[in-house]
């Protein structure tokens, strides 16, 4: 067995995946020893790197000129096509949009295509993304295929957790549970890989909670970061002002969040804030997400205390849940406004 540091290096060198060395190691050895299974389930929170790992696996399986068994070259045509999810033998099945539903017809279509011989590669690889969004009948429809697929077919499933799939699905797959990287490690990885500055890398690592995919998304899209800061500023303002302004905010939010998307994003930012407040109020060493807002967070934590902070966190979470269940956004916003405590955060973020 190689030393962990060495493993990490190899994983990074050969598969170009941040973290998850053990998983890369395992999959590599499966390919190298010709012990590939017919179905893998990669589970883990959003942005942890499930899809990347699945694509790398597909590349490693089908690469036209692998430098060594189990390692994709990442430069040949097939590898590049797979990277773009446009290869002839890579069948991608996913819900139409995030939060949508993967329909049973898509699975049936997949079954038909999987039954065909691979077009140019060694294996036909079916990539079923966010399979927790699959309709229950779609999951059931996959069962037989998942247990005994055609000889030259491999199914790769990704999901947020094993529990959100049918147990009958899970028990047919080899499950790899990807978990977030330690914050420090991700920060180091971001510095080394992307050349991000020290401070920015740390912030990204904290914000993403150790999930490389999310960190990359945040670093590539400055718009997302701007939105986050705007959301926090808004919250700070609301905490300090009276009900009239709060209700104006609720009205505004409801008006321009017809698609709910914006409001949901805002709630997510707020949730991260309140969770940080809770963590600080509890006095734990656990890393907070909004590293650049530490001062206001500490202030809020000492002003509110643990119980109240916990209550607020759950309140925001519940509001997000209600939004998901199509409760009137304005109603949610207004109730939330009534429940926000009155504190003025004087300290400014770093």
């Amino acid at each position, binding site marked *: 067995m190689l030393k962990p540091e060495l493993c990490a290096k190899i994983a990074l060198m050969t598969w170009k995946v941040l973290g998850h060395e053990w998983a890369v190691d395992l999959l590599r050895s499966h390919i190298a020893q010709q012990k590939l299974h017919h179905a893998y389930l990669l589970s883990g929170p959003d942005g942890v790197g499930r899809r990347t790992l699945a694509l790398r696996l597909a590349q490693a399986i089908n690469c036209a000129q692998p430098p060594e068994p189990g390692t994709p070259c990442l430069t040949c045509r097939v590898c590049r096509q797979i990277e773009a999810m446009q290869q002839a033998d890579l069948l991608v099945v996913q819900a139409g949009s995030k939060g949508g539903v993967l329909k049973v017809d898509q699975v049936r279509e997949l079954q038909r295509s999987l039954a065909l011989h691979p077009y140019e590669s060694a294996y036909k690889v079916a990539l079923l993304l966010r399979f927790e969004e699959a309709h229950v009948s779609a999951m*059931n429809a996959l069962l*037989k295929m998942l247990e005994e697929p055609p000889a030259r077919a491999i199914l790769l499933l990704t999901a947020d957790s094993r529990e959100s799939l049918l147990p009958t699905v899970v028990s047919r797959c080899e499950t790899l549970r990807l978990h977030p990287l330690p914050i420090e490690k991700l920060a180091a990885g971001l510095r080394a890989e992307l050349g991000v500055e020290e401070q920015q890398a740390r912030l990204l690592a904290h914000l993403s909670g150790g999930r490389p995919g999310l960190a990359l998304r945040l670093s590539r899209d400055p718009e997302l970061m701007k939105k986050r800061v705007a959301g926090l500023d808004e919250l700070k303002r609301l905490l300090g002002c009276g009900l009239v302004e709060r209700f104006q905010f609720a009205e505004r939010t409801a008006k321009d969040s017809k698609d709910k998307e914006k409001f949901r994003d805002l709630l997510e930012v707020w949730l991260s804030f309140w969770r940080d407040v809770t963590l600080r109020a509890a006095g734990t060493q*656990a*890393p907070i997400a909004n590293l650049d807002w530490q001062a206001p967070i500490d202030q809020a934590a000492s002003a509110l205390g643990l119980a109240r902070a916990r209550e607020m*966190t759950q309140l925001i979470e519940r509001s997000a849940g209600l939004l998901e269940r199509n409760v009137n956004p304005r109603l949610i916003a207004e109730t939330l406004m009534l429940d926000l405590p009155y504190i003025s955060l004087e300290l400014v973020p770093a």
Partner: protein
Amino acid sequence: MSQALYRKWRPQTWDAVVGQQHVVQTLHNALAADRIAHAYLFAGPRGTGKTTTARLLAKAVNCLNADLSARPCGECEHCQAVEQGRFLDLIEIDAASNTSVEDVRDLRDKINFLPNQGKYKVYIVDEVHMLSTAAFNALLKTLEEPPTHAIFVLATTEAHRIPATVLSRCQRHEFRRIPVVEIIQHLEQVAQSESIQVEAEALALIARQSTGAMRDAISLLDQLASTGQTITLAWVQEALGTAASQAVLTLVDALIEKDPACLLDTVHTALDSGSDPRQFARQIVDYLRDLLIMRTGSPAQIETTPEARLQMERHAQAFTPAEIMRLIRLFNTAAVEGRSAWQPALPLEMACIEALELPEAPAAPRVSSQPVQPAPAQPPVAPVQAETVSRAPAPPPTSAEVSEEDVQSTRNLAGMWDKVLGLVRQQDPKTYGLMNSCKSRFMRRDQVLLGFASDIVKAKMEKPENFELAQNALSQILERPVTIRCYVDTHKRSAIPDGVDNDGMVAAALRELGGELVDIN
């Protein structure tokens, strides 16, 4: 590509089926006596051998061996064909993909043709619970009286979704979860034949984790074996995301100590080392359940080492059964909570913190996340109710510390105030007038604070005759000696008195909407 172990090790003879003696024996006897039914329903949890048994049955009825009880022989042409998946008269239908009534009609059309090779055509309809209602109904007639050469085997994990009309036409066999001991035995056998090195403890954990499903157990073994090294307990734990049991103990210690920092640190250490938040929550629930069992006086049921038992007893004594139940409920919610994709650990963290709060807390009225209590018929200006008790009382009119008790007795006083006024009125209408003009009233232990609008009224009230009369009346009504202190209520009318939540609806009405506090009752 190598075949997954659970497929490679699919039993090919009756004897190889693990843990389903009651089903195997029945079928075997039926075969030996040549009394095969025309429709079977195999129901049971995943990975317990339904499809396997169905295929065995198909093999057995078509086997060419002369001895009925020795079927399937595994050697004849037909047995071989079934094993290799090329037997024409074994028709395996994936009911989850062919759910419609058209599919069933298609089946009905073809079933009348005689078998190609064997004696029987065997239709295995797997995942049969997914058939549509119309499809089920279309199947009914065929299922009741199929041609003599046809046998149906329906297999499902969810028998409750099968219509009663279908159930009554089938011979139903219930597959049970396979006991841990038998799983371990079977895994040992597999490991030996596949030359996999594995620790006994690791096998036990795999078996326990698979909750009676053999496929889960074998595929986990397969996964762990793929690196070709000895499988250790630590490795299994890592793959499963189960935290070391030490983490659970530390967490319970922190719960007893009521130390939120230590509690969350424990959670995060466990998660950083790779355990799954839900899995961890489930482990906590398991342990708490053991504590509950121990606390309710049946410690014999818990299998554990003597040292661990001592530790458990200490933990069990630190809680009352009601507390343990509350904790179990909290952590169980965290274990099943589906939401929160943003931060997977959040439900667990919230459960931890909530667990530390006093058990009374959930019973206390929530802030105002619930709709306001229906206001009684009162002028709309004053929807004032002191029901929303604060946990963080507003600053008092005097500098004295306000205790929870004071808030309570202030509310009490508010309820009694009319009686007090009534009593005073009987004795002296003038004093009654004075007291009636009192703006605010508070209790501080044995002192009653009366707030008046101006010095003049206050001075009048402080005249001995008025003062004593009021004091006596108050003591009489409150049934304990109290003293009166008067002060000038310089607060604005909208100041938020104690007993009213600073963040609640009443406070909001006062502060934002220009409400006036008319009365507290």
